[in-house]
């Protein structure tokens, strides 16, 4: 069977990136990945993916710039508020039974979900004995996450999410506003570690009680989804919790028999 030239170029680009930089996009969902690459082409003055591949191989700075297109950061605080309500209702009572708590936000992007969970844990009296790992493959996103500064304009929507998510105070209690930006209070990140970690190439780094990985698996093909779910299973403690994105599920995964469903609508699972 003859393949389309673009399809071949996409495979070669992924292979080149993997061999040269170790980032593995080979098992990403093809259609979204292609869109992102095509969208990036004019930004690098390239007419074809092959031309972009040449630049990526020879200019590390081009790869770092391309990475921003391949991992488009899309995140918001308390996204899908009912998910956080379910965490408060179904997960917090069990977390309370542990002397120390480890939470892993896999694919944390620019940190919005990490800070949302930190606020939730604080309000439940658990933050001081918690350690939250926020991991991502994009160093620029991680740097933004560490700064904990978000556009003030977005805070209005986040505040609305926060109230619907069962927030016990005002979201504005947790940040200082200045120059169109919201700086999140430092105490929220005192027990947070942001680190580079790839669900495609790295292994488990810690035992955790809760893994939250939302709207990351949709960018993976089934093989890579299974790898990631396997990592979460290995990382979770006995009866640990896993939360996925609102439209992600384990229905088609080889891992589905290794978790039980806590709340199907909110995509909350528990290790068997």
């Amino acid at each position, binding site marked *: 069977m003859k393949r*389309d030239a673009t*399809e071949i170029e996409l495979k070669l680009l992924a292979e080149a990136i993997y061999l040269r930089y170790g980032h593995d996009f080979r098992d990403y*969902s*093809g*259609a*979204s990945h*292609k*869109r*992102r690459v095509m969208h990036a082409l004019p930004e690098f003055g390239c007419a074809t993916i092959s031309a972009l591949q040449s630049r990526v191989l020879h200019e590390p700075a081009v790869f770092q710039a391309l990475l921003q297109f391949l991992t*488009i950061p*899309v995140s918001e605080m308390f996204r899908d508020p009912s998910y956080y309500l379910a965490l408060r209702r179904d997960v917090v009572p069990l977390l309370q039974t542990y002397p120390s708590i480890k939470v892993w936000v896999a694919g944390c992007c620019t940190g919005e979900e990490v800070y949302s969970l930190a606020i939730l844990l604080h309000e439940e009296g658990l933050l001081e004995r918690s350690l939250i790992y926020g991991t991502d493959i994009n160093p620029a996103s991680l740097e933004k996450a560490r700064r904990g500064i978000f556009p003030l304009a977005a805070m209005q929507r986040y505040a609305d999410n926060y109230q619907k998510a069962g927030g016990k105070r005002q979201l504005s209690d947790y940040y200082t506003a200045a120059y169109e930006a919201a700086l999140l209070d430092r105490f929220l990140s005192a027990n947070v570690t942001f680190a580079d970690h790839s669900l495609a190439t790295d292994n488990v780094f810690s035992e955790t009680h809760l893994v939250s990985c939302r*709207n990351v*698996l*949709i*960018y993976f*093909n*089934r093989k890579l*989804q299974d790898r990631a779910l396997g990592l979460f299973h290995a990382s979770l403690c006995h009866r640990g919790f896993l939360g996925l*994105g609102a*439209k*992600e*599920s384990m*229905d*088609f995964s080889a891992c589905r028999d290794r978790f039980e469903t806590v709340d199907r609508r909110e995509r909350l699972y528990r290790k068997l």
Partner: protein
Amino acid sequence: MTTPAFDLSGRTVDAVVIGASAGGLEALLAILTQLPPGYHLPLVAVLHLPSHGDSRLAEVLGARMRLPVREAADKEKVEPGTLYVAPGGYHLLVEQDLSLSLSCDPPVHYSRPSIDVMMESAADAWGERLAGILLTGANEDGAGGLACIGERGGLTIVQDPDEAAVSTMPRAAIARRAPDHVLGLAGIHALLLELDKH
């Protein structure tokens, strides 16, 4: 009733993709509710919806249709004779292996799901064995996607702008690239039946 004659020129399609925006629910119902059980082509639809909250589109359509209707699930294989609709707040894409995938990438034409995103990926997956239908709507999403289907040799159909509840979207598509057919909703329904015979 006489079936309008369509010159399908021996064309065979394996799937139908549909985009609609303002006024689109009524238009979708008009072309889809009377498709008979046993209709074998898979159908993939994007209707612009408010992006927050769960959409009940699959339920609403499912209650009126004689074919199974499902909200598209990530990495689900496309089955024949089934209508898949994009969930609100997510782009819906078709993969090369004819499974569906979702994405949270930024809106296109202020829309997520975007018709362009779905149609472009469907054109990649099905090539010339695809029919694309663009219905009523108030923005220009879909024009690029439908053109992409046409450039790949697929069949393109646009709702007659004079009949559409809102003509902006059909007009944008016609201006972008001349479609194979410009039809009223009754004509599009008849064409859907005809496509299933080939």
